[in-house]
């Protein structure tokens, strides 16, 4: 089934909504192939925005370009603008390392370092010059509390991160990301490798994090998108076909492709 890529609906945010980050005609190329075709999306502050769509629709690629992780992929090129506090993050004079501490990321598979829980969380703060033990201790506690992991690991902070379960590892990765107190948290299918109970724990964590962070999450799980997100963007074939409030996307989508996707006609 082929859908017209010109048939699009992008809802404008209400006038009083505060923007955390937005893109303007963002295109991603791998070699000569254009994987994302000019996506312009707004992301409201302290809200969760879900990016949904079939495999290969470009949603992960789009997400990874927001903190310039695509820079690390040989042969990739990103054009267009990423607007953040009056700056274009896609411009070459942006310090990507400083930028990434403000725009954190959590990956699909839990990827803790082969270090202790404590060292995993303090990894980034130490890289940025924080060595005071008391400050680091506090940071570890607040980050683990933020990721709803503190109670489970507070007695084993110096144990290897690999001793944790998959769900705990993923929450550790979230704790590690929020230890830098980023503005925006990008999450690339953070629960797809987890069992339902761990998934529930991670989702609960996200709803709590929303109070302090703007979250953009790629998910294959439509119930998850419906449960946790305020806005949903539907990606199809490298294009964002529809962006709207989540309840509208799941009840009254304006685009046929979105309707077919959320009602399970293809995936």
């Amino acid at each position, binding site marked *: 089934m082929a859908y017209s890529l010109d048939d699009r609906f992008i809802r404008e945010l209400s006038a009083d909504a505060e923007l955390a980050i937005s893109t303007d005609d963002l295109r991603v190329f791998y070699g000569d192939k254009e994987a994302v075709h000019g996506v312009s999306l707004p992301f409201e502050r302290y809200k969760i925005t879900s990016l949904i769509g079939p495999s290969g629709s470009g949603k992960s690629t789009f997400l990874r370009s927001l*903190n310039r992780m695509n820079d690390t992929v040989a042969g990739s090129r990103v054009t267009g603008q990423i607007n953040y506090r009056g700056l274009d993050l896609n411009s070459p004079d942006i310090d990507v390392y400083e930028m990434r501490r403000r725009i954190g990321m959590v990956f699909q598979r839990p990827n803790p370092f082969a270090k202790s829980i404590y060292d995993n969380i303090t990894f980034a703060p130490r890289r940025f010059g924080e060595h005071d033990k008391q400050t680091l201790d506090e940071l570890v506690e607040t980050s683990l509390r933020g990721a709803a992991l503190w109670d489970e690991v507070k007695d084993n902070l110096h144990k290897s991160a690999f001793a944790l379960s998959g769900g705990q590892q993923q929450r550790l990765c979230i704790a590690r990301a929020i230890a830098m107190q980023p503005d925006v948290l990008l999450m690339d299918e953070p629960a797809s490798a987890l069992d339902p109970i761990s998934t529930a724990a991670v989702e609960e964590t996200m709803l709590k994090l929303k109070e302090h962070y703007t979250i953009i999450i790629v998910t294959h799980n439509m119930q998850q998108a419906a449960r946790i997100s305020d806005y949903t963007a539907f990606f199809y074939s490298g294009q964002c076909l529809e962006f709207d409030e989540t309840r509208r996307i799941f009840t009254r989508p304006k685009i046929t492709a979105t309707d077919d996707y959320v009602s399970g006609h293809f995936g």
Partner: protein
Amino acid sequence: MNNDEIKAALTSKSRSAKLERRGKIISFLCIALIVIAVFAIFAFVAVRGIATFVGTKVTLWNFLSKTAWAPGTTDASGVPKLGALPMITGSFGVTLLSALLATPFAIGAAVYMTEISPKWGEKILQPVIDLLVGIPSVVYGFIGLSVVVPFIRNTFGGTGFGILAGTFVLFVMILPTVTSMTISALKAVPRRYREASLALGATRWQTIYKVVLRSATPGILTGIVFGMARAFGEALAVQMVIGNAALMPKNLISPASTLTSVLTSGIGNTVMGSLENNALWTLALLLLLMSLAFNLLVRWIGNKGAMK
């Protein structure tokens, strides 16, 4: 098919079951042959090597701690002069020094080839390293003899032969081994570790130093131990540059010897079954035990690394 036919088919061995059985037997025999060969070598060397201490006045302690090596002669109290400490010192000296020298170069080269410029690494450096592995050791020895030894002689004085010359030659010989094993260790670090580090705002250097090298440490250590095993066992190239004097080395540029160099230069000049000959077998046993120790070390590091 009636029930009887089915029963017959299910209870008798089919053609493929027989073939499978035959295959199993053949592969087991192959393994058995290798195991037997290894045990036979061990037993042979052990029997010969231990004979040095049986019915003679030579004790194991004397063998390992005395510094006079003159097979065929005895000291004032009639004990044969079989002190292997100079060779043991020489062997460990060249091994440790060359590993110490090679490790930073190997890690540097491997980091360049995997993290910094994989394209260049794959096109130019990998073939160079493969080539270095393939050069016969006599060529290394010859270059050592005609370049390294005169260089040391002119720079530091003395004859130029000694542990330093041996170290330089072994350094070049084990560098490719350690480098290529370090490369595999770095390549085995999952990309998601690098991504995790970069996504936290760490720079490329911080990522390499704090994440990639850290998690590759067991693999790198294994590479170093393999290099040391190679250095410890290398005979020809070392023999050509070390000076072959079974004396306790006074410094890095005085003529010395290793277990292997004494073995290769002495084994043809002794009579099978004599004490002099047995003493050489004892050196061989020592070498064998050391390579066993290196192997166990590699396994131990591997196990420790796997648990994390």
